[in-house]
């Protein structure tokens, strides 16, 4: 009760009334929205950013970390996800834990992310030409290459040029790579023997102080929260956008986009404030950057006579082709100390199996974990996250507890694999009109279909895991099932890019085919997903979108 009263009081003191008509209204303040807002504000445009989530005080991060580590809090509580605002439903035969895979707040889901930031490979843009699979993007790697370099500078990517499988790059990474872990060294000889090359793992984490943020301090809780601010999160660019003159309104949930009579231009974004007021922000251009689920949902919610199936949805592709990155992992025990959980991020990967000759099995990445001994993605909630703290759930204390901790900690390793899945029109985000959210809007329904391409790829990956574990004399204690793979919180494909307005939602300039001043930037514009974490590509596409918006204004 107390908490509620406090929130409302605070909410009242913030002015959430709209600005006069601005140049650009950006909806969503994750990396996509934050980078667009920052770039355009820097170039002198009037920018307003609206985000459904709140501003989290960086000073509280250490306490959010404690929530993540201690039993007694749900995983989603750390960034206050869940409740009526974030309702969703699931159909199909797979449950999808949507609220564990996103954050609403200033900074978006990067508040919670791990921060791995490789580039996609050339092949990811050319799946149809190369393999006869899925579709090509309307742009290729070369088009995105300068934007990748710029995105790496903005996010502060630590990496090294020791990866022979990486696509060509023009300049070194802004920060040196994190050195490999002791755990990586256990794998190194075995991998060499069987011809697997390991290399560093590019990530948006400060291996040295960078951009006014400190060096990684080794808290080991990167996902879901970095108390040091060493892990990049998009609130960094929200602050920069504000310093450049942008206005950022938190807790401003956009309900729909309203267009003019012609149906060809969006006029305003209609949003509701915590005080229950409804406002309309008018602008010359709109950029929807709400992630791969809320972006299509906002378009579907904005249906009108001119756009009866949802705004900018003459193709019918809005919400379709929903992709994740299915993953598997293998855990093993060795008869030596493996030194897990000192840090919260991987330091070595192998992209050797990425560029394949034949269409199948498809691309996958191998990640050597430094956090083995609990779920590799940390999705087992408080306590389990830190591995060694898991016994705090149990009945024991004193010497018995220490005994259990010693039993559980020490000699585990884990290697995981993340695979590409192909786009499938029936894998989709729709509106569930039978359930409504806090504002009375239909909630998103997720139907995620994995597809046989990914399952076959993951089976192949698991056989390589077995081979590796065999070489390090490990005993496998668990392998996850490729037919019910894990998810890694990447929401892709739901407003795909393309040249053909009958098949796609946005063009190569990230502008919707149907509406002339509406741009979309998020994982939703991906045509195919590759097997790499998507956020560096999202950042690169956002910088590209900002250029196009700038020249259109």
């Amino acid at each position, binding site marked *: 009760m107390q*908490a509620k009263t*406090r929130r409302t009081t605070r909410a009242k003191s913030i002015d959430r009334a709209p600005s006069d008509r601005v140049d650009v209204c950006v909806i969503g303040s994750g990396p996509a929205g934050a980078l667009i807002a920052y770039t355009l504000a820097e170039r002198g445009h009037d920018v307003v950013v609206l985000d459904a989530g709140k501003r989290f*005080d960086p000073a*509280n991060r250490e*306490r*959010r*970390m*404690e929530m993540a*580590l*201690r*039993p*007694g*809090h*749900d995983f989603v*509580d750390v960034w*206050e996800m869940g*409740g009526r605002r974030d309702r969703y439903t699931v159909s199909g035969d797979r449950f999808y834990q949507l609220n564990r895979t996103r954050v609403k707040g200033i900074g978006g889901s990067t508040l919670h992310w791990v921060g791995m930031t490789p580039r996609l490979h050339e092949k990811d843009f050319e799946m149809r030409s190369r393999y006869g699979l899925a579709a090509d993007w309307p742009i290729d790697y070369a088009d995105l290459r300068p934007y990748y370099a710029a995105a790496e500078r903005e996010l502060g990517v630590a990496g090294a040029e020791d990866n022979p499988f990486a696509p060509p790059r023009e300049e070194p990474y802004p920060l040196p790579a*994190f*050195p*490999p*872990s*002791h*755990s990586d*060294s256990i794998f190194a000889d075995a991998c060499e023997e069987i011809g697997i090359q390991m290399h560093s793992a590019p990530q948006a984490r400060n*291996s040295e102080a960078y951009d006014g943020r400190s*060096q*990684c*301090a*080794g*808290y*080991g*809780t990167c996902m879901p929260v970095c108390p*040091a601010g060493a892990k990049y999160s998009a609130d960094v660019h929200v602050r920069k956008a504000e310093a450049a003159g942008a206005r950022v309104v938190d807790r401003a949930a956009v309900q729909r986009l309203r267009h003019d009579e012609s149906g060809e231009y969006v006029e305003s974004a209609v949003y509701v404030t915590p005080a229950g007021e409804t406002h309309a922000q008018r602008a010359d251009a709109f950029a929807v950057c709400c992630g791969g689920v809320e972006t299509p949902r906002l378009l579907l919610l904005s249906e009108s006579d001119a756009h009866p199936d949802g705004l900018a949805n003459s193709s019918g592709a809005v919400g379709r082709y929903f992709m994740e990155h299915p993953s598997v992992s293998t855990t093993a025990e060795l008869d*030596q*100390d493996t*030194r897990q*959980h*000192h*840090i*919260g991020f991987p*330091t070595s990967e192998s992209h050797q199996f990425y560029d394949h000759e034949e269409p199948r099995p498809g691309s996958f990445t191998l990640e050597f974990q*430094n956090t083995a001994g609990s779920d590799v993605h940390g999705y087992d909630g408080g306590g389990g*996250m*830190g*591995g*060694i*703290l898991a016994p*705090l*759930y149990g*009945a*024991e*204390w*004193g*010497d018995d*507890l*220490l005994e259990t*901790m*010693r039993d559980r*900690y*020490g000699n585990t390793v884990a290697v995981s694999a993340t695979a590409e899945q192909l786009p499938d029109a029936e894998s989709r985000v729709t509106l569930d009109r039978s359930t409504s959210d806090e504002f009375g809007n239909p909630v998103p329904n997720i139907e995620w279909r994995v597809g046989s391409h990914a399952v076959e790829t993951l089976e192949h990956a698991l056989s390589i895991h077995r081979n590796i574990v065999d070489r390090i004399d490990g005993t496998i204690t668990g392998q996850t099932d490729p037919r019910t793979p894990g998810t890694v919180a990447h929401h892709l494909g739901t407003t795909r890019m393309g040249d053909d307005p009958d098949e796609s939602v946005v063009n190569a300039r990230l502008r919707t085919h149907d509406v002339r001043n509406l741009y979309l930037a998020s994982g939703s514009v991906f045509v195919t997903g590759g097997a790499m974490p998507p956020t560096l590509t999202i950042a690169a596409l956002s910088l590209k979108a900002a250029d196009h918006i700038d020249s259109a204004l």
Partner: protein
Amino acid sequence: MARLDDRASESGAFTARDLDVLLATADVVYPSAVSVTEEFIETYSVGRVQDREVYRTGMKRAIADVNAYAGRYTGTPFPDLAPSARDQVLREMGVDRVQPEPEGTVPEQVRYYLVNELLYALYSTPTGGELVGLENPPGYAGGLESYQQAPEDRPADE
């Protein structure tokens, strides 16, 4: 849903008696290899929560609950009991059979605000981590060296 309480305040500080209960509980829930010092508790527990009014109130409530229970069933304040009797009081309250829950029943809150508070303070610092073989446990900003070190290079083994 348990939200983070971000009210900062200095009020409701711990009394000397509260500290006695914290120390007496630590004595029971910490492994025998750890000698519980007031300084450790002051730094990693009391110090950690000093500007967290609601959390501190929870801790004080749990301290009072344990004390009241001990008084009622043994006639002796909790800190004055022998360690085995203190252990028994916690178990009779049911603290060993429940999950920690900040807004839960009395034993659930005692588990959260007292037992797990102290366990977290221990095992998220090198003092506890080292007992398990992890000098830089999750929650501790132990830098970027230890993850690279082989077991034989650990400072603790020197």
